[in-house]
């Protein structure tokens, strides 16, 4: 039995309503945990004053420099004593999740039991970077808490100017749109950077994210420095039985309005079943005895829309791999940036393919480490120095897939033009 609860009239209002209440959870923990009694006291104070009361600091485990988010209270009385002493230290352990965030109940129960012994009993599945967030532990308990979690097969994630924890989608484990083994790529790349995860020494954070198809369920394009997004090079596959099933349920109106007319490049056409076009780059499938759809795959940008609508009737091709984009980030400092293409396509099937991805990732991180300004994300570095300098720095060839349009201004010195043309032609001949 813990100490007496503080009055929390504002938080109490968050116990009503149909959505699961975190406040009810905090209160349940507070029944046997003084830290949570005082945590509720401090949080209620924040709700009253509309102020935050945590400051950072330095707390880590033996051998690592990052992975713990230290929090010390700043809510103190006139004598400088914490008003809520049992929550005066409330650190978080960031722990890397398995790819696709799959668990069994055995491991979840073990993690819960351990955290209940050493920490507050509050766990977020998951934080915005993908970490399991073990929230609320005193400084003197951090090492023990980590040791147990570590013995259970889990490791700390990134914090500060480091390679950060990554996420991958459910992917090949349960999704028909998966274009590569996301889990294998995720583990191979991240586990190559463990030193850069655990011992922060980069100019700023660096995030990888792995999405199995262009639906990008991991939001990799806008929230990772290096996004690995599954795609395919060959034709969209078709399945007449499932295509007919879609049509039988939806009819021609939905087929036209929801599939054909929503294709961003007009690559799909509704055609007469008696006049289906043929060719090596055309995917066509009958949806009824009289009508069919035909896709010119050279015009398709692999956006996923028609496949999402007619799942199974249409599906990604067989020559699968990934597009790599670089430079996505959130607001600070120069404004939000999307990742942009640095590799239009690479295969990701074999260990050898994945080693090539690791090699590319290493070159990008090395270039970032050596050339970024302090507190600059790689997208900002690219903006500052230009994509071409970045590509030369990491050893990648230019490709028209990297641009939305060619240059729109003449402000460039082009006296190396003939040499560049000669290089492009030599490369063409060698191919």
């Amino acid at each position, binding site marked *: 039995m813990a100490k007496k609860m503080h009055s929390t009239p504002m938080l109490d209002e*968050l116990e009503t*309503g149909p*959505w*699961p209440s*975190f*406040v009810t*959870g905090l209160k*349940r*923990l507070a029944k046997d945990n003084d830290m949570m009694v005082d945590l509720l006291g401090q949080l209620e104070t*924040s709700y009253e004053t*509309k*102020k935050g009361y*945590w400051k950072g600091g330095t707390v880590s*485990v*033996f051998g690592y420099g990052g992975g713990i988010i230290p929090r010390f209270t700043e809510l103190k009385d006139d004598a400088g004593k914490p008003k809520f002493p049992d929550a005066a230290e*409330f650190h978080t352990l960031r722990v*890397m*999740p*398995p790819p*696709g*965030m*799959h*668990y*069994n*109940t055995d491991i*979840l*129960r073990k993690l*819960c039991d351990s*955290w209940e012994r050493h920490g507050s009993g*509050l*766990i977020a*599945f*998951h934080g915005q970077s*993908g970490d399991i967030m073990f929230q609320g532990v005193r*400084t*003197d308990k951090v090492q023990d808490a980590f040791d147990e979690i*570590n013995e259970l*097969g889990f490791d*700390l994630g990134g914090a500060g100017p480091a390679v950060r924890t990554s996420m991958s989608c459910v992917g090949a484990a*349960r999704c*028909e749109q998966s274009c590569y083994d996301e*889990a294998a790529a995720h583990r191979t790349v991240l586990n190559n950077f*463990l030193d850069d*995860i655990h011992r922060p020494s980069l100019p700023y954070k660096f995030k990888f994210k792995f999405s199995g198809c262009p639906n990008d369920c991991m*939001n990799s*394009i*806008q*929230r990772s420095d290096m996004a690995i997004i599954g795609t395919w090079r060959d034709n969209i596959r078709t399945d007449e039985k499932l295509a007919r099933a879609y049509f039988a349920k939806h009819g021609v109106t*939905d087929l036209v*309005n929801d599939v054909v007319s929503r294709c961003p490049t007009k690559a799909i056409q509704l055609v007469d079943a008696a006049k289906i076009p043929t060719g090596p780059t055309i995917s066509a499938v009958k949806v009824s005895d009289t009508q069919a759809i035909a896709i010119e795959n050279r015009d398709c940008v692999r956006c*996923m829309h028609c496949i*999402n609508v007619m799942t*199974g009737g249409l599906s990604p091709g067989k020559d699968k791999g990934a597009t790599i984009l670089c430079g996505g980030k*959130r*607001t*600070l400092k120069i*404004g939000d940036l*999307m990742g942009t293409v640095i590799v239009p396509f690479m295969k990701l099937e074999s260990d050898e393919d994945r080693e090539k991805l690791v090699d590319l990732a290493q070159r990008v991180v090395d270039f970032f480490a050596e050339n970024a*300004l302090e*507190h600059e994300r790689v997208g900002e570095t690219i903006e500052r120095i230009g994509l071409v300098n970045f590509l030369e720095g990491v050893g990648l060839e230019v490709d028209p897939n990297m641009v939305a349009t060619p240059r729109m201004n003449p402000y460039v010195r082009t006296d190396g033009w003939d040499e560049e043309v000669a290089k492009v032609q030599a490369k063409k001949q060698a191919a």
Partner: protein
Amino acid sequence: MSTATATPRRAIESGVPDNQQYLHPTLKKNYGNWKYHDRPRPGVLHHVSYSGEEVWSVRAGTQRQMDVYTIRKLCDIADQFADGHVRFTIRSNIEFMVSDERKVAPLIEALQKNGFPVGGTGNSVSMIAHTQGWLHCDIPGTDASGAVKALMDDLHQEFIREEMPNRVHLSASCCEINCGGQADIAVIIQHTKPPKINHDLVANVCERPAVVARCPVAAIRPALVNGKPSLEVDEKKCICCGACYPPCPPMQINDPEHSKLAIWVGGKNSNARGKPTFMKMVASGLPNNPPRWPEVSEVVKKILYTYKADARPWERLSDWVERIGWPRFFEKTGLPFTKYLIDDWRGSRSNLNASAHIRF
């Protein structure tokens, strides 16, 4: 104290754990061999493998910040109805996989009975991606868990149904860094006053050149204040972004009255149809009003239900606005279009209407 022992334990740098050990047996068996899926009802995905095997995934909402009792309750349900395996989505929903269709209904019943809403699939409003807020962040302008709980209480019916034109992703961020991320509708703190500087502390707490370098508009410069080395802010230049506050806590940006909430719309990560899009600010000046932030919920719902009524099937919020145009967006939602919504940051002219395209 273990940290003080003579020979501390050396970490096993095991990195990212292998997920194969945690996969549901049907997922493991059909890894990389799935053919298609459909949704028999809101909250349930039905995947079919090329092998002919099937799996049903039941998705439920959680409060994300979970106490161990809640997690154990979810484990009990998984053990009883779902072969002891679960996974989480990026939006903190939990999924239970079953390979026997007959287990779906009792699983749903058990989840609902224990207060976990089943939904969040397809054309629903899924759980709000959010940040730490007052609970754990060191620079929060507001709480995230509370605002999210309040809003999800209001949107519960949209979570458990699939009645939106397309999926709707929401996010909430407790400072302008926007850790919540891009979303169809996002709630983000918007500071309106420059930082208040405690000049007594700056010299001891802040690495001044680093703070100067952080400012996106070069409004911070070193200064001697009351005989002490400190920093000063050119308040005419300051855009109140709060970038200086994390490296220099004595430059307090959060203000109980003047830190407001803004609403952004039209962010999309997916490549489906158009390219991914950034969201746009459409409202600001909303009060930071715990514990339930009713003014914020009201604007979000106004936008959401206007979209629901007006968008065509498969239009995400950004697709809808692209069709109807921004003037009509403001007209239909009743939100005022003010001068602050015209971009003047770098590259802003590309956000102006360089055409005679006007909808009347």
